[in-house]
């Protein structure tokens, strides 16, 4: 049994692994080309409220 195997739950080792894992995921993502016109799914939405102009039209 190696030292590496013995300490699978060592916090320092886990921290290194977590960073490596995130870096590996980032590399795999970046390897996927996305056409420049592709936007992410929309999350932001303007708040719905009636503008002054719309209120005047209603009146």
């Amino acid at each position, binding site marked *: 049994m190696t030292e590496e*195997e013995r300490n*699978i*739950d060592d*916090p320092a080792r*886990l921290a290194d692994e977590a960073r490596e*894992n995130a870096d590996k995921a980032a590399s795999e993502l970046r390897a996927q080309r996305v056409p420049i016109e592709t*936007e992410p*799914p929309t999350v932001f939405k303007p708040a719905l409220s009636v503008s002054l102009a719309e209120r005047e039209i209603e009146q």
Partner: protein
Amino acid sequence: MNESEVRFCTAAELASALRRRRISALELARAYLDLLKKLGPKYNAVAALMPERALDEARRADRALAKKNGGPLTGAARGAPTTWGAPPYRDQIFGEDATTVARLRRAGAVLVAKLAMVELAGGGGYRYPSASLQGPGRNPWNIERWSGGSSSGSGSAVGAGLVPFAIGSETSGSIGTPSAYCGITGLRPTYGLVSRKGAMALSWTLDKLGPMARTADDCATVLEAIAGADTGDPTASGKRFRPLTGRAATSAAKRARIAFADEDVSEHASPEARRALEKGVAEFKRIAPTFVRATLPAMPFGPMVQTVYSAEGAEIFAELIEGKRFEQLVDARQKAGLQAALEIKARDYLHAMRLRTRLQDALAAMFRDVDVILSVGRAMTATPITQPLDNPAPPGGPKPPPDKRNLSGPGSGNMGLIAAGNLAGIPAIFFPCGFATDGLPVGLQLVGPAFSEPLLVALASAYQRETDHHLKRPRA
């Protein structure tokens, strides 16, 4: 009806018993409270019993039934999440119900308990099933095996017959895995069909709440009660759910074109699970005979979903991660994962999100040729309670089989369906299809386009009318 007769009843059976006055809602609530009190600890399934509230709600349900105002869920007990399974939040009390809980209450359901879950729904990536304030979720079919996560208590409690249904949450696999491992039926709704207001957020763009029950029909009854518009959740679509009935359901099942990849079973199922899964697929083919070979696009589903929920989860829990209470979390790997997630670059998060757009386009093209995708629920049975879930090199012993959830590319079939389905925000139903050679349940999943829940339920319900896997009960 006594306690043993109540245990393992479906919500539909209980509704019938209540209408016929074979049992009162109060007696039913007491029976489930007793079951949860006696057996909940055996499975680490219960976070908190709620006897006073349950009995109050049950009396109210009895009054409604006396006036013949009871709905399909009147008097039926259920579980609901609150403590987030995490020691830093062990004393957290909310002043109001989540929308889902309020809607169930309005439908006449009785809240008997808050059920256990993996801490923070597993955000950061946990190593051991013990990553929960309540301890590892134990499987009703073998308590030395895991119930699955992150909705571990919901899986255990429904599988053990301690409640007729529960609510689970899924970011990527957290309704599906416990449903498959515990031999129950779970429905992950389309993103935005069910309001998430009041539920713990792990990932704003991935989280869904859905029913876990003994049958597809019970899932439909619960979904009908909880779906719909909510001004408290800006992502709520406003759509409702209505199940297909009678001839429409039968016809839809017969006409549905089913995408399937043989290698999901032949190549990727564990040796223990393979035969039962093959049999399940053959049975399903008798219900819906039009099978078409079709597979998911080759995309890095694992890195995509991991990057999205890690980045969003790290922002949601940043105050916890950078505060003193963080050390109270149980799982050391999860803590390391949450800390590392704070450093994810905006460009990588946005790249993953743009890939989601590409995935949605690819799936829309796929669903022009097929109606649903059929695959294994999980390719293996529940893992031992002490087994690490991320396959690190174990001290001495053989390396455990790899987790094939996020496979992608040639030869992968549709093994990435859980991650892909969650990334695309599309619905899935998980249902049992038999038992592996190790005596544990295995199941299948059906995934359809957005808001195709009526078809998914019709197909799973048709399967359950022709088979009895969902009726099997673990030994008491």
